[in-house]
Structure formats: structure tokens, C-alpha cells
């Protein structure tokens, strides 16, 4: 989050200031990339670049505060994922096969995530959740959006968003336990 200087930064970027834009980009890009890595691991970088294209094109017309801005950027990102799914379905190409997801590599992401403190592995673990749970958890934890924002973004009721988050958290807890890590982390 950028905070109090956000309005000035935004209006500078809207005026064409590259440095201001770069700061907005640096602030949001990591979260954007991580959100997309959970959503579509194989195309996250491309989709992040496409999302920024949309942001750049729409920036001049944007009105709102930092919260609105973040919600907007993630809305754009989410639509890029829909586009991607549509195109993938059309091309019948390599959407990651489900069998592959079930086939856990010897290095369990759960173990890797906690032991190596690896963000990538943590994201891979979150990506194992059912899609709607994963999305709610990512938007709350990584995008930093609140329940109301996430509800609007997903077109769901706030109560539904809360339930999805709870389910996601419980599932993660069980997943970590079943990976035999409970001992290590509850110590």
C-alpha cells in the first residue's frame, strides 16, 4: 500500500509522469503476479503484463482512492484470467491437467513453503484450494482487499466471501497437518 501519497502519485501518473507510474507499478506488481500465479500458474507473467496494458489504457479515466484503485487493478487481472481460460478452451491446449495437480512432486509444496519460506511454494499450496476459496484467500491476503471489496469484485455476498475464506483456511490447516508439518509449526 502506498498510503497518503497515493492521490498525488495517481494524478502525476495520470498526467503522464513515468516515475509516478513506476511507483504504482512497483507497489502492485508483486501482489498482482502472486494473485495470477495462484489463478493460472503457467501464464502469470503474461497475464500480469496484459493487466498492466489495461491499467495503462484506462488510467486517465480512473477516479477513486487507493482502495478503489487496487480493486480495479485486480478486477482487470481477473478478467484477463477469464480471457485466458476462454482462449485455452478454444485452443484445447495445455491447461494444467488435473492428474498432474494430484500427482504431488516429492518435494511437497507444503513442506517447501514452510521450510524454505518460499513465496512460490506458498502460492502453489494456496492454488491447490478449490478455485473460489483460493481466489478469496489470495484477494484478502495478497491483494489486501477487505471483505466488502472482495465481495464486489467477485459478485458475491460478503457472507459468502467470509464462508469461502473460512473454508480455505481450514483446508489449508488440514493440508499442512497432513503434510506432517503440524508438529514443526505448532511447536
Amino acid at each position, binding site marked *: 500500500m502506498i498510503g497518503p501519497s497515493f492521490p498525488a502519485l495517481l494524478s502525476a501518473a495520470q498526467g503522464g509522469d*513515468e516515475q509516478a507510474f513506476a511507483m504504482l507499478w512497483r507497489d502492485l506488481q508483486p501482489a498482482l503476479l502472486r494473485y495470477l500465479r495462484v489463478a493460472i500458474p503457467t501464464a502469470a507473467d*503474461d497475464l500480469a503484463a496484459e493487466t498492466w496494458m489495461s491499467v495503462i489504457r*484506462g488510467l*486517465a*479515466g480512473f*477516479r477513486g482512492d487507493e482502495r478503489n*484503485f487496487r480493486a480495479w487493478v485486480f478486477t482487470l487481472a481477473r478478467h484477463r484470467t477469464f480471457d485466458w481460460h476462454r482462449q485455452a478452451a478454444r485452443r484445447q491446449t495445455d491447461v494444467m491437467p488435473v492428474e498432474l495437480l494430484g500427482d504431488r512432486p516429492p518435494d511437497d509444496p507444503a513442506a517447501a513453503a514452510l521450510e524454505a519460506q518460499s513465496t512460490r511454494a506458498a502460492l502453489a499450496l494456496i492454488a491447490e484450494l478449490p478455485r473460489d476459496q483460493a481466489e478469496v484467500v489470495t484477494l484478502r491476503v495478497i491483494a489486501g482487499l477487505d471483505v466488502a471489496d472482495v465481495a464486489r469484485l467477485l459478485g458475491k455476498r460478503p457472507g459468502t466471501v467470509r464462508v469461502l475464506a473460512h473454508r480455505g483456511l481450514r483446508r489449508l490447516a488440514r493440508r499442512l497437518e497432513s503434510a506432517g508439518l503440524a508438529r514443526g509449526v505448532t511447536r
Partner: protein
Amino acid sequence: MNEEDAVPIDMRQLLAFLRPTPPVLDEDTADRLLTGRLDPADAPPGYAGVARLLAVAAAPAAPEELAGQAAAVACFAAEVESHPPTPMPRRARMPSKLFSVKVTAVVSVVVLSVSGAAAAATGLLPSPARWVADQVSPTSHASSTSRGQGDPVTGILDSPGLDKATSAALCQAWQAGQGASNGNRADSAAFRALAAAAGGADKVAAYCQAAADGGTNSSSQGQATATGPDAAGAAKAGLCRAWQAGQGGGNGRRDDSVAFRALAAAAGGVDKIPAFCETTSTSAHGQGQGPSSPPTTLSSPVTASPPASGPPSSTGRGGQGQGGPPTTG
């Protein structure tokens, strides 16, 4: 170490199986967990690992996550170049119906007067509200008059994916790099964006060809006074901006990338880039080069309202007007 360590492994799995699933969290705890305000040590039984996992997932940015900055800034610069920003007048709380009627009327008038009936036939109504606002508003910035007359007309010819100036720049850089065995090319964020727009790395050539053809077509169709995409100018400008943005940024890859080698080649040497870019910044300006405009949903209420997403390409969930922000309140 606790006593569970002494339990044989399969026994431990059995215990895990028998143990009740992690408790349902109360709302406050869940919220603290999700916002990173719950110390793993204070987490309810079974959730300490989750707290740590989420902290790792939300860890500060790694350098590799910021690697695409130069490309992103270059795209931004290309957009600014092709579409000089003008402040949009506040339209908040104008009844949307009234607004869209007014805009429709004004658009028709402006279009007819600026570029003739032929252009109007291309269906301007969903045209960028930003441009409309420029033309309509009495508070509009002086620069709206300095923009090329053909600008609004070429603005209609948005291609989905990348905007014209950007894709022209990237295509040119990509073509310049063809044949040079540079591993970087396919990897850089800019070229991945190009590949994404093309629908795959293997389709870039066709995409660039089509983009070039499209550019010629549109200008040969007598698009009012539009001068057609000045690909060379736009590409040069975009690359120069990117190069300048990277100046002093300690970006080691800058000089190595195909795009910048193309720039260096055009300039006649790496050391001549500054002078070369100096001339570009003045000459490549105001060419009305088929910019993409942010199509704003005209009929939506405008309070704190970001515009719709750029490309009209997307159709599915959310329909048009997708990218429309979650409305507040």
C-alpha cells in the same frame, strides 16, 4: 520436542486422521489471519502453520517480481506518447441517463464536423469517453486542441490486446531481433506481452504482419486526416523512453536486450542513443498514431468509477463493461 515425535510415522497419520478437523475460526481471528495480524504463536490449534504460510505468501517483493518494470514503463510511455493525457472533468453524480444522451448527441455532432459522415458510419458511440470529455468540457485542457485532428478517428481502430503504438514498437523491436539468436527476446516481459497479444510466441510474426497491414489499410481507406500509425516514430519513442527510464536504474539487462540493441543499431551505436533519443522526443510527437483509448462505459454512474478495461476483446463473464470496477457503497 514434544511427545508426538516419539510416535511412529503411520501412527501419527492415524492420529491426524482421528483428530477433529481444525476448529472453525471466529470472525475476528479469521480476519486477523487473513490480514497478517495474527502471530503464529497466538494462532488457534491447527492454524499456526496457516499463519506462517500466509505470511510467506504475502512477503515483501522479491527482485524477480519487479523485473518487468522497464517494459511496463516503456508501455506506459508509449501510451502517453500516442495519447497525451488530458484531465477528465468531474462528471460525478450526473444522472447517467441524461449524461449518455448528451454524450451521444455531442459525439454525433463532433464526429460529423470533425471527420465527416464516413467516420460516423464506423460506429463511434462506444468511443472513448475521455476523448468525448475532452471535446465536450468547457474546462477541458488546452492540449485537447493541440492533438492531431485525426486522433479521434484512428482511436476507433483499437486493436484488442496491445494498443497500436505499443504493439508497433514491440513488433518493430521483435522483427529487429529476428535471426539474432538472443535468448532474452522471448523472455522479456515486453515480448511476452507481445506474444500474449498475438496469441502465442509462434504467432508473433503473423500478428506483426497483420498489425502492419492493418495500419496501411486504415490509412489507405482515407481515415479523415489521420496520418496512420507512425510505427517508426512510436517504436523509437517507446524504446527511447524505456531506455531513459532505465538510465541510472542499474538495469544490467538494458543494453543486452534485443529491443535496446535495435535502438542502438538505429542510433548508430550505444553511445549515440542519448543524442538519437533527443531528436526522437521532439519529432515523434503528435502524430495521431492510432492510439488506443480507454473505452469508458458511458452509461455507468461515475462516482469513484474506474473505466472499463481497455480491449473490447473480452466477452465472457461480466460481459461488456467488465473491468468496470466494483462500485463502492
